[in-house]
C-alpha cells in the first residue's frame, strides 16, 4: 500500500481521476461508453508512439522524429493496401514493422555510431522522412482504404480493437523494460552511462535497439492511424512528437533519463486525451482552449517538480539517531 502511494504515477492518476470526476459533473455524457471509447481510440496512435518514446527518454535520449516516422509508415502502408494485390493483414503488419524498424534503425545507427546528440539526428531525420513522403505523394491524400483494412481497427462487440492492440503493446513493452536484460540496460544507460559501461552494458547496441524499437512502435502507430481513419494524409500529425514527449513526461518519465514506466505513460496519454476531450465537453470557448491546455500541463509538471524538490530537500541525507 505504501509502495503505491509513493509511486510517481499515483499523483498523476489522482489528478486524472479528479479531472474526470469534475468533467463528469459538468457533462454526464463524459463518462458514457461512447465518449470513453472515443477518447481511448483517438489517442491510440499517440499512445503507441509515446510508448516508444518512453524507452528513448529513459535512456536520456529524445526522438523528435516519431510523428514523421509514423506518417512515413502510414503513407507507404496506405499506398500498399490500395495498390498491391498482396495486401492482407499479415503482409501489412509485416510492412509496418519493417518500415518502422528501418526508420528507427537509421536514427539508432546515426546516434550510436557517431555519438551525435539524439535531438539533432532526429530533427534531421524528421524532415527527411517527412520530406520523402511529401515529395513522393505531392501531399495528396490516399483515399478509400479497403474495408478489410479499416476493419482491423473497428469496434468489435463493444470492444474497440485498437485499444486492445495498444494494451497488448504496452504490456509487452512493460515486460521488456522490467524483465529483460535489454530493458534494464535501457534504465542503466539513462541512470548512469559510465557506470553502465563499466557494468558491461553494450551502450552502442542498446541505444541502437532503443531507437529501433521506438521506430517499430511508430511503424505500428502508422498502420493503426491509417486503419482508424480509413485514409492517409501524408502532411498530417505534425507536431505530435511534442505531444508524445509531453504524455510520457506527464506520466512520470524523467526527461533526464533513468526512470519511467509504461503504466505511467499510459496514464499520461489518457490524461492528454481527457484534457483535449474535456475542453470541448466542458464547452470552453475555442480561443481559450489552448491557453487552458498549456496551463494544465504547466501546472501538472510544476506541481510534480516542486513536490520532488521538496521531498529531496527534506530527505534524510545522513543517518541520525
Amino acid at each position, binding site marked *: 500500500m505504501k509502495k503505491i502511494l509513493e509511486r510517481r504515477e499515483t499523483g498523476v492518476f489522482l489528478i486524472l481521476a479528479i479531472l474526470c470526476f469534475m468533467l463528469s459533473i459538468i457533462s454526464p455524457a463524459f463518462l458514457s461508453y461512447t465518449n470513453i471509447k472515443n477518447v481511448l481510440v*483517438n489517442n491510440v496512435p499517440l499512445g503507441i508512439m509515446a510508448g516508444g518514446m518512453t524507452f528513448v527518454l529513459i535512456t536520456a535520449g529524445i526522438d523528435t522524429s516519431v510523428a514523421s516516422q509514423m506518417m512515413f509508415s502510414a503513407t507507404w502502408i496506405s499506398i500498399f493496401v490500395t495498390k498491391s494485390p498482396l495486401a492482407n493483414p499479415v503482409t501489412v503488419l509485416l510492412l509496418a514493422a519493417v518500415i518502422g524498424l528501418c526508420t528507427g534503425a537509421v536514427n539508432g545507427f546515426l546516434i550510436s555510431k557517431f555519438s551525435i546528440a539524439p535531438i539533432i539526428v532526429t530533427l534531421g531525420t524528421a524532415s527527411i522522412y517527412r520530406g520523402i513522403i511529401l515529395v513522393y505523394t505531392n501531399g495528396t*491524400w490516399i483515399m478509400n482504404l479497403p474495408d478489410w483494412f479499416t476493419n482491423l481497427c473497428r469496434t468489435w462487440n463493444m470492444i474497440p480493437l485498437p485499444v486492445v492492440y495498444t494494451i497488448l503493446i504496452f504490456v509487452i513493452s512493460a515486460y521488456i523494460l522490467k524483465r529483460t536484460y535489454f530493458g534494464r540496460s535501457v534504465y542503466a544507460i539513462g541512470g548512469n552511462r559510465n557506470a553502465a559501461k563499466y557494468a558491461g552494458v553494450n551502450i552502442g547496441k542498446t541505444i541502437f535497439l532503443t531507437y529501433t524499437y521506438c521506430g517499430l512502435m511508430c511503424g505500428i502507430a502508422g498502420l493503426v492511424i491509417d486503419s482508424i481513419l480509413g485514409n492517409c494524409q501524408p502532411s*498530417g500529425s505534425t*507536431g505530435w512528437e511534442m505531444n508524445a514527449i509531453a504524455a510520457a513526461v506527464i506520466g512520470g518519465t524523467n526527461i533526464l533519463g533513468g526512470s519511467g514506466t509504461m503504466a505511467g505513460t499510459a496514464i499520461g496519454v489518457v490524461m492528454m486525451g481527457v484534457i483535449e*476531450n474535456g475542453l470541448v465537453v466542458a464547452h470552453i470557448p475555442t480561443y481559450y482552449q489552448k491557453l487552458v491546455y498549456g496551463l494544465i500541463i504547466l501546472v501538472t509538471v510544476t506541481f510534480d517538480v516542486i513536490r520532488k524538490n521538496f521531498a529531496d530537500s527534506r530527505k534524510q541525507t545522513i543517518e541520525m539517531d
Partner: protein
Amino acid sequence: AGDDYTIALISQQIGIPYFETSNVWGMEAGEDLGCEVIYTGPTASDAASQANIVQDMITKGVDCIAISPLDASAIEPALKQAQEAGILVITWDSDVTDTSLRSVYVNAASYQTLGEHLGERFAEYMGGEGQYAIITSVLTSQANSEWARYATEYMEANFPDMERVAYEPCDDDQSKAYSITQNLMIAYPDLKGVLGVTTPAPPAAAQAVAEAGRNGEVVVTGVVEASVAKSYLEDGSMQEANIWHPGKLGYLAVYTAKTLLEGNEMTDDMEVPKVGTIDVEGDQVIMTEILDITAQNVNEFDF
C-alpha cells in the same frame, strides 16, 4: 522568345488536395498555352514564408505572379515589390485587401458568396433549426475564418432557430477533425450538424458521424473535393460538398495571366477552353458557379 512567358502560380499551401488540383490544371494550362508555369507555395500555413517565396520569384524574374494569398494583407508589401519590379501580379482563389496591388482577381466566389452559400445549403439540410458546429483549419487562417463568419452571419440572420454551439480548429489534420467531431457529439447531444470549412474537416466529420451510427441525424456539409467526398456522400454520412472546381480555377488563373501578358484583355462572357464561359466584372474575372456535389452527381466530377 517574346511569348515564352514564365508564370509563378503560388498557392496558400502546397500538399493539400485542393491546391494540388489547381496545380495539375495549372500545369496543363501551361502546356496548352505554351508558357512555363512554376507551381509553388509554403509547406505550412505561414504567411511570412509565402512572402519570402514572392520575393524569390521576383528575383527569379518571372513575368507574372499569380497568387492565392494566405493572408489578405500580409502579402501586400511583397506584392508591392513585385509591382515595382514590373511584374504582372494577379490574385486567384482569394484576394488582397489593397486591390491596386494586382491587375486582376481571378475569382471563384468571394468569401461572402461562398460563405453564404455554405450557410444556405447547410441550413437547408438542417431544416433551419437546431444546434450546429463549424470546424475550421487553424484559427489564424483567413479564408476559412471568413467563410465561417459569413456562413454564421447568414444563418443567424435567416434562421433564428439555428444555434452555433462550437467553432473548433482541426489544424488541417483529419485525425484531429475526426476526434473533434466525436467530442462535439458528446458535448452537445442535440447537435444536428457539422459544417466543415476546410477540406480535411467534412470527410473526417462524416466518418465520425457514420461510426456513431447517426447518418442523416447529424448533417455534414462543407468545402471538400468531389474525389475525397465521394465515399461519404455515397454512404449517406455526408450530405453535400460545396466547392468550385479548384482545377479550373488554376487553369483560369494561368489563362488570364497569359492573356494579360500578351497585352490582351479578359472579356465578359468569354469562352475559356476547358473552363467554360466566364464573367468579368470590373477587375474581377469570375468563374461562375459554385458546385453542389451530392451523392447523385458526384461521379460527374473529376477532381
